[in-house]
């Protein structure tokens, strides 16, 4: 009688495909994963506690550091929550600008997500470089708009920090057809590729029920076939004025999660086109040193590239919030991983993890 011993592998926190500092404790039988336990906390900066000692304007740069691939969307989430709490009206131009910026950042984030997913599947660096080349255009636009390339700190409670500089709307208009062309190219390289399909189809299947049970949101939930997008279902800003579709997948496998993101990029391009066309005149700039003394509590969620980003703010009449809770989408999305990968092998674990598109910045906070 032979004796079996399980092989325990500590994947991470330093590993090429754990997207930052995630630590997966894998229990293996040969190469088959018996158990997977994600350990988090390597990037903890106690952002929620910091929020209790900062005014909302001061806290804005910290939201950049949550999901650092979609900083604009995080800024937007906090702004909308405070505006809801304080009943602040925002000028239409600022609302349109916010939509354009948020959708641009969604594209940048999704480009990064699909290309790092391809990287995890071993398409070494080439799709990543193509996506980064296109993302660079968005980063350039943001650099013109707010002066930073990653941590934007652009939105303000009541508006934005600066109007579009001259010439930037032309840059965006130039960018839309360019990205459409490049996305077609990217899809030719990957979407139909036989190896790519064989690696990602029917791998890491996430059923609709499991996804809902674990609180999975965003493209991951939509890939499982559940049509839920806060931009459509609980419209905020001016999203109800635009015509766009919510792409959904069928099987909820890794390939579906990939293709949903690709299709969302196309939808976002559509939204940007419409918003640029209908951009109203006005002054979108909000005064920065306005003091807010919120009383009461509120929760507001927005559709981040990774899912539902919620801010729950309790105010006690002070300029600092009494409590600020962040509902990070990646956190729920990661929690489903161990249910997904049981019985797969190491290569597929990496594939499933890559397709979930997590960002450790907002998981550990």
């Amino acid at each position, binding site marked *: 009688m032979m004796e079996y011993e399980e092989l325990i592998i500590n994947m991470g926190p330093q590993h090429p495909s754990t997207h930052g500092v995630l630590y997966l404790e894998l229990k293996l039988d040969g190469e088959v994963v018996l158990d997977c336990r994600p350990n988090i906390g390597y990037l903890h900066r106690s952002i929620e506690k910091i929020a209790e000692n900062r005014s909302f304007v001061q806290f804005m740069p910290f939201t950049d550091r949550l999901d650092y691939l979609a900083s604009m969307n995080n800024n937007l989430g906090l702004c909308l929550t405070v505006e809801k709490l304080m009943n602040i009206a925002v000028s239409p131009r600022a609302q349109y600008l916010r939509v354009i910026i948020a959708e641009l950042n969604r594209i940048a984030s999704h480009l990064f997500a699909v290309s790092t997913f391809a990287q995890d599947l071993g398409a070494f*660096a*080439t799709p990543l*470089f193509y996506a980064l080349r296109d993302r660079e255009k968005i980063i350039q636009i943001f650099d013109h708009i707010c002066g930073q390339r990653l941590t934007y700190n652009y939105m303000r409670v009541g508006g934005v920090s600066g109007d579009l500089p001259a010439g930037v709307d032309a840059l965006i208009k130039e960018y839309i057809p360019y990205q459409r062309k490049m996305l077609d190219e990217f899809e030719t390289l990957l979407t139909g*590729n036989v190896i790519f399909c064989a690696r990602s189809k029917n791998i890491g299947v996430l059923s609709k029920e499991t996804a809902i049970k674990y609180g999975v949101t965003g493209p991951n939930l939509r890939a499982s076939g559940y049509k839920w997008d806060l931009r459509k279902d609980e419209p905020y800003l001016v999203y109800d004025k635009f015509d766009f579709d919510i792409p959904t997948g069928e099987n909820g496998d890794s390939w579906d999660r990939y293709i949903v993101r690709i299709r969302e990029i196309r939808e976002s391009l559509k939204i940007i086109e419409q918003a640029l066309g209908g951009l109203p005149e006005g002054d979108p700039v909000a005064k920065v040193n306005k003091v807010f003394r919120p009383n009461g509590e509120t929760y507001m969620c927005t559709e981040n590239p990774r899912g539902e980003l919620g801010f729950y703010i309790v105010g006690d009449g002070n300029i600092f919030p009494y409590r600020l809770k962040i509902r990070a989408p990646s956190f729920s999305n990661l929690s489903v991983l161990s249910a997904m990968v049981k019985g797969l092998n190491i290569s597929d674990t990496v594939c499933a993890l890559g397709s979930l598109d997590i960002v450790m910045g907002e998981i550990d906070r």
Partner: protein
Amino acid sequence: MIAHYLPYLKLLLKGVCVLSFIAVSAMFLIWLERKVSAKVQNRLGPMITGPHGSLQSIADTVKLLLKENIVPSGADRLTWWLAPFFVTVPPVTAFLCMPFGPTFIVRDLNVGILFICSITSICVLGIFMAGWGSNNKYSLLGGMRSAAQIISYEVPLLLSALVVIMEAGTLSMQGIVHAQEPCWFFLKPNLFVAFVIYLISATAEVNRVPFDIPEAESELVAGYHTEYSGMKFAMFFVAEYTNLFIISAVAASLFLGGWLGPIRPSAGWFLLKAYVVIAFLMWIRWTLPRVRMDQMMSFAWKVLTPVALLNVLVTGWLLVAKG
């Protein structure tokens, strides 16, 4: 007296030539790979060291020579030390019967192709030793994957070489090249199939994308050479690129007419053909994702091996029909 030692001196000289060729070729190939990848990815690649970064590999070699040699604690010392040699020596030995020109060959063994195929398979031993000796779980997995992969791709590789042997009627590398004087082998349909099978299985033999499963960066960090540093790592690297050159050179001699060409020098033609194959493999590497272990195995046993066997059958039938 001198005349007595002359053959040995000549052999020594040839050995030195081969070794220096391998070193230079590996460095050149590393530079080429970096340049091709840069081109594919809209980058520039190394540009600072020398014109277009051509001296970059030399700088890297110097760096690797100066680096500390770290032995992981709990490593199986003997296997750990020996593994790089087991990986490096076989590809060097394979140059013994590499036909660079009509007379430009170290020894034209009459079992040439068999010798090359068998000696390069020893590499897998070194890789497995590296995986075992490192006392690292990733390395161990990489070593096991490599053993499974190389053994299964040996079969279609040899079967496709068998077709060439049947066509040429000889095992000697020079003989095979001479047999292609009327028509390069890959222009014949059955041999073209063999050529494709050879390329696929040779790519798997040298662990290149899409079959880089033993060193799968995103899964196993660096596979069997995760723990190696300094010159030992460099030896793995040199072996990898020498192997790449060998499979391309063998492909050139078996299917693309070897050193045959309209004008002299014949060695130039040989190198040109080999480098065309290498460039093609590099182009593939920077395009495709990696296949999974079980997919790769089923591809080898369910697709490549039956097709290669069928090809052998068809070739035999054609030869018999021709008389």
